[in-house]
C-alpha cells in the first residue's frame, strides 16, 4: 500500500505546484487594465492637462519595484469622533517573499489644494501572501475633503 501510495502522492504534489498556489492570486495584467489614470488639473484654462495621475481618494504605487508585487484590495475613509478623517487601505502582498513598503497620505481641501502637511512615511511589513492594513489620520477636520495615498518600497 505504501509503495503504491508514495508515487501517487508525489504526482499529486507536482500537480499541486502548478495549480495549488497559495491564495491570494493577483492577476497583474487585469490589475493594470483596471487601473484608471485621470488627467491632472490643467494649468492652462480651457486646455487638457498633460499630466495623467491616479484619481483622488486612491492609492498610488509610485515605485516600479513593488508595482507588480502589491495589490491594494480596498480603501475606505471615515470621520473620527473629532471630525478628522481616517483612511484605511488593505494591501495584499502577491509574492512569496517578505516585502517592506511605506506609504504616506496627503489630505486635500474641497478646492484640491493640500490642506495640511503630508503625513510621514509609515512602514508596512508585508509577510508573503498576506493582507495588511495601512491606516492614516488627518490633522484637520472640516478642511479635509479628499486624499491621495502614495506608496513606495522601503530602502
Amino acid at each position, binding site marked *: 500500500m505504501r509503495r503504491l501510495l508514495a508515487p501517487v502522492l508525489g504526482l499529486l504534489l507536482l500537480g499541486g505546484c502548478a495549480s495549488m498556489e497559495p491564495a491570494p492570486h493577483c492577476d497583474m495584467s487585469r490589475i493594470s487594465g483596471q487601473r484608471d489614470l485621470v488627467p491632472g488639473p490643467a494649468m492652462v484654462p480651457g486646455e487638457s492637462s498633460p499630466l495623467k495621475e491616479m484619481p483622488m481618494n486612491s492609492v498610488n504605487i509610485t515605485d516600479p519595484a513593488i508595482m507588480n508585487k502589491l495589490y491594494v484590495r480596498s480603501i475606505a475613509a471615515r470621520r473620527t469622533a473629532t*471630525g*478628522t478623517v481616517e483612511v484605511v487601505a488593505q494591501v495584499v502582498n502577491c509574492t512569496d517573499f517578505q516585502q517592506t513598503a511605506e506609504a504616506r497620505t496627503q489630505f486635500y481641501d474641497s478646492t484640491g489644494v493640500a490642506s*495640511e502637511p503630508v*503625513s*510621514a*512615511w*509609515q512602514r508596512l511589513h508585508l509577510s508573503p501572501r498576506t493582507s495588511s492594513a495601512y491606516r492614516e489620520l488627518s*490633522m*484637520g477636520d472640516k478642511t479635509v475633503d479628499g486624499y491621495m495615498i502614495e506608496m513606495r518600497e*522601503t530602502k
Partner: protein
Amino acid sequence: MRRPYALSVAIAAALALAACQRVDNTAGAPTVYIDPGTSGPVKGVGIESQDVIAMTDQMLRDMLSQPRLANAAMPPNVIIDSEYFHNESSSRLNKNSITDRLRVGLNRAAAGRMQFVGRHYADMVAKERDLKRQGTVDKATLPAAGAQKGGDYRLGGRITSLDSRDPKTGMMQRYNQIIFEMVDLETSEIVWSGIYEFAKAAQDDIIYR
C-alpha cells in the same frame, strides 16, 4: 547610399528633438541635503531622523482624533515636554527632539482645539511677571493674569529597547519601543496613549551622539 544616410540623420535629429520634450528620467544633482523623513546613507540600529518624524507625526494625528483632547467644549491646557518622558533605551538621543517636535506639530495642527502651556518657560514668564509687578517695566498690552496657566493634561512616556548581538557576525538587532501617554493632572487617569515600535538589524558600527 546617400539618401538613406541623410534620412537617418534627419530621423536622429527629430528623435533628439522629441527626446528633449520627454521626461528626463535621470537622477538629480548630488547634494548634502537629504530627506530627513527617509533613511539616509548612514543607517544603523538606533533611533534616526525618519523614526523621530514618523513617531511624532503618528502620535499627533492620533491625539487629534481623541475627543477628550481635541473636541472638548473648552480647549484643554496641555503640557508636552521631556520632563516625564524617559529614555531607558540604548539609543543615544536628545529626547527633546521628540517632545519638541510633538509639541510644535500638535500646536500648529490643533489650531485652537488645544492650548499649550510652556511649562519649560515657567521661569521666563515668572521673571517678566515680577518685573511688571515691581514696576520696572510697564504692563504691556495684554490684560494681567492672576497666575500662569495650570495644566489639564501632561505628556509622559518612555523609550525602551531590547538589543541582541551576534559576536560571530557582528550583526546587531534592536527592538525600539516608544510609548506616549497623556495623563489627567487631577485624577492621574491616562486619557490617551500611543505606541510606536520598530526593530532594526544591521552591522554594529554606526556611532550615534
